[in-house]
């Protein structure tokens, strides 16, 4: 089942309230997204941990309902 971009953003922001989230629907099919997430919570953490935090926010949908989410995480400049 495709997922709405707003729902993805909402779930990420619920877990990381300070996050700036930009979602791009790559294929226009509601199934292949890119997300850029900027949050202070990532500071000092290795990239794997940063991505794991976003995946955790998505509550197990990643890899299932959400097939493709190209993820970029950043700490605020």
């Amino acid at each position, binding site marked *: 089942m495709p997922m709405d971009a707003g729902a993805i953003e909402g779930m990420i922001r619920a877990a990381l309230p300070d996050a700036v989230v930009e979602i791009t629907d790559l294929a226009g099919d509601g199934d292949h997204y890119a997300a850029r997430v900027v949050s202070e919570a990532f500071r000092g953490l290795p*990239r*794997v941990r940063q*991505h*794991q935090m976003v*995946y955790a926010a998505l509550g197990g949908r*990643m*890899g299932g309902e959400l097939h493709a989410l190209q993820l970029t995480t950043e700490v605020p400049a």
Partner: protein
Amino acid sequence: MTDINTRIAEKVNGSDVVLFMKGTPLFPQCGFSSRAIAILEHLGVEYDSADVLQDAELRQGIKAFSDWPTIPQLYVKGEFVGGSDIMMEMFESGELHELLAEKGVPHAA
């Protein structure tokens, strides 16, 4: 019966660079796995791979083992590095090359 975690640990410790992927290096079955292979080929590094599509237990097991929901997954010297997005980011920034050099893994690029 071998416990899946033992089997995965043996695999990741058996070679310097191990990629868990969908398909084989010659015939990747997914764009993300294909991208991961392209990066490894470009770095000119020797690697071992495991096709999760041929092994349902491995396909589920590796996700729990790494606490990572998607395939491909890259391990260097027994340590989980990340999926294809992280590989791409690290490749472009030169960090992947640095990591291999730091860990003493021979590679061309």
